[in-house]
């Protein structure tokens, strides 16, 4: 008696889909492309066989990098453990308990044994396994499973999965924003359909994408971006339907002063040159900033920085060109033609950019946005103070920072200036649990910190009152008492 009928096709993996690979707690976002090698957890394979399968299917990796849908699992994949000891009093770790050598294991692999079978071999050849406590046995199996079971699950991307993926793999790319903190941001900013939301982030597009997911293609999102172009790698990974992108606008913050002053001219006959110039200036700046940051970046991170400097169009082109494969040498004539085409293309792009800017500017000019989300590596205070101007009264805003000090500054400034209430500086403590019979406890490894949030609500600004008289903006009858608290 189903109340409605689901369309299988919505849940089927198709070529071109953005998906997330999962093994254990490790995720990786990829696009389904046939005949394209994917490397995940130090193994390579092809996603061709995934096409047509349902999302959330788990695949086994067969030889030649072929994925095979796993058969429905046995009742709690039971590795035969042949009884457990009650404690570890008799165990001596002399490194000799495993009779199988590394070479033996390689041979087993070459013989085509599956992960589960190899683990069983390891257990059978361990002299201490049966003396281990159930707890220790479990730990052992888990460890070996991770090493020898070659399975991968293909998931439909979501804010939850991508936030966990970025936090696990590349926290530096998302300013160490933890997924639960992102969850708080989306709720504190009251992100929902049919509203107009401003986003300023340098989190690879993860925050932007999460906001867009919550808006479901209804309303509008304006990405306020620093530097040469908006970063959207993370947005792409969400695999939104095309119409979602119609709701997404962008505005370079290097024009913010002009916009605020009302001097931004988006109708100029040849504005592209102007825009280009200041964009380039901004670009240079970004590079300089990167260098002033006293942080050593991993290769992956440096690569991101580079990507961030490309415009989104360039990025997606790059993505496509990868699929093309090898480069064919060109003759001079063709070269010349190409150059012209490129110049033309550039012009078209600049015109597009101008239109976009005009569209975003007109959305902003109403100064009636419904929400503001900031999460970046920039000092948040000037960003917040500038962007708050574009919100209607009685609208929520939320600022993320990895550093509490930055938000103390924001808080202090807002208190001085007025125009906001319900200010709250918070952080969150996230704990995972292992829940198993007689072995329930918090997970031993825990995130050290998820960053800080400052949230609040805008109210109608005081009309030209001197700053001094605003001190009582937020009456706090019980504050004094808790000063020592």
């Amino acid at each position, binding site marked *: 008696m189903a109340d409605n009928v689901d369309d299988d096709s919505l849940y089927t993996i198709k070529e071109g889909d953005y998906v997330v690979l999962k093994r254990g707690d490790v995720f990786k976002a990829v696009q389904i492309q046939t005949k394209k090698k994917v490397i995940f957890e130090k193994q390579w394979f092809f996603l061709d066989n995934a096409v047509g399968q349902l999302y959330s299917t788990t695949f086994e990796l067969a030889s030649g990098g072929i994925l095979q849908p796993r058969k429905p699992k046995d009742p709690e994949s039971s590795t035969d453990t042949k009884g457990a000891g009650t404690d570890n009093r008799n165990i001596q770790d002399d490194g000799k308990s495993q009779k199988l050598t590394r070479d033996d294991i390689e041979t087993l692999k070459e013989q085509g044994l599956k992960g589960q079978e190899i683990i069983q071999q390891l257990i059978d050849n361990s002299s201490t396994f049966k003396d281990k406590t159930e707890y220790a046995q479990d730990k052992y199996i888990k460890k070996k499973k991770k090493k020898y079971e070659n399975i991968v699950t293909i998931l439909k991307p979501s804010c939850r999965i991508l936030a966990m993926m970025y936090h696990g793999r590349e926290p530096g790319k998302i300013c160490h924003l933890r997924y639960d903190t992102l969850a708080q941001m989306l*709720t*504190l900013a009251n992100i929902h359909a049919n509203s107009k939301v401003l986003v300023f982030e340098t989190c690879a597009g993860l925050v932007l994408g999460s906001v867009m997911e919550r808006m479901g293609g209804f309303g509008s999102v304006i990405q306020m971006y620093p530097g040469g172009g908006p970063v959207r790698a993370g947005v792409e990974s969400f695999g939104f339907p095309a119409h979602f992108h119609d709701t997404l606008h962008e505005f370079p913050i290097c024009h913010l002063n002009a916009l605020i002053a009302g001097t931004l001219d988006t109708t100029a006959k040849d504005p592209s040159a102007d825009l280009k110039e200041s964009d380039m200036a901004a670009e240079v700046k970004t590079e300089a900033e990167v260098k002033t940051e006293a942080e050593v970046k991993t290769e992956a991170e440096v690569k991101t920085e580079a990507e961030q400097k490309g415009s989104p169009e360039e990025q997606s082109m790059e993505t496509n060109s990868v699929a093309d494969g090898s480069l064919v040498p060109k003759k001079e004539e063709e070269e010349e033609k190409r150059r012209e085409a490129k110049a033309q293309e550039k012009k078209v792009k600049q015109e597009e950019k101008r239109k976009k800017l005009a569209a975003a500017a007109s959305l902003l000019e109403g100064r009636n946005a419904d929400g503001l989300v900031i999460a970046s590596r920039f000092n948040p205070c000037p960003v917040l103070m500038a962007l708050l101007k574009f919100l209607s009264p009685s609208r929520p805003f939320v600022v993320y920072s990895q550093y509490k000090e930055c938000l103390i500054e924001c808080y202090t400034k807002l208190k001085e200036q007025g125009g906001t209430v319900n200010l709250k*500086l918070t952080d969150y403590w996230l704990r995972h649990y292992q829940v198993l019979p007689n072995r329930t406890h918090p997970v031993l490894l825990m995130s050290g910190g998820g960053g800080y949030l400052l949230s609040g609500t805008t109210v*109608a600004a005081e009309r030209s009152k001197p700053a001094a008289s605003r001190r009582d903006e937020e009456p706090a009858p019980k504050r004094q008492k808790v*000063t020592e608290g």
Partner: protein
Amino acid sequence: MSFVEYSDCIQDGDVAIVYLGHESMTPVKVKRGAQTQTRYGVIRHSTDLIGQRYGSKVTCSKGGWVYVLHPTPELWTVNLPHRTQILYTTDIATITMMLELKPGSVVCESGTGSGSLSHAILRTIAPTGHLHTVEFHQQRSEKVLEEFKEHRVDHLVTVRNQDACKDGFGVTGVADAVFLDIPSPWEAVRHAKTAMKKHGGRVCSFSPCIEQVQKTCEAFSDQGFEDISSIEVLLRVHDVRTVYLPLPDFGPDPSAQIQPDSTITPPQNHASIAIKTTIPPRDIQGHTGYLTFATKTQDLIIIYLHHKYTGCIL
């Protein structure tokens, strides 16, 4: 005004949040001709509220002033009348993300309680989703439906007065997500599964005690749910303060230059430094409950061999 869409101005029939000061607010049903008494004096709805912009400052009869805020699920959570223990924003935010709620999601919930989570769900799944919420306490289910109407979200929600453990959620194969906040969630797990789409979805159970979590995890596992994961999220609020730290007086420094025959220079009194810092509240909410999440994958055709809970059949 609606809890799922902003308006600029206050209208007759709206629910507005009157902000009285730090952590002091009160919800008001706006009604032409009505008055609301506050500690700063009377607010006259016809003149002070209706037609005013949300976020405006309203001067009360005694000369004090308040702000009038547009309602949001988060403001409602800290202002709603408690008929039960309620879920707060920290857990709600986590639940919303971890259940992957978004516009269009179909969600089942039990119990409705005071509707704190329900409003947040409705905000997120609007305008195209639906909430099926089940509450076994009759009065509560009636009261919350009344609130949904006042908040103009009733078109998005079906309230059922029944026992989710016995009778389930009243729907089959439609839910993208199910949320359980009941004393024996493990008894409702099979109903949760039934309510969910055949292609799968996410489920969450909230329980204050670890024994409940243990039983629920077992039930999830027995019913073939995957990725079972229990977490806890705690909120810490930081109070921003300027504190003054006195500097110690080590007495006159003989190594410093002293004038001949000088009297001892008095130590620099009043010396202190100011720092901008935060202090934690003395006491915080140290536990609300454990959140256990799990994924239902697509229905399998094979029949599970049940070992522990023979009572649970697919």
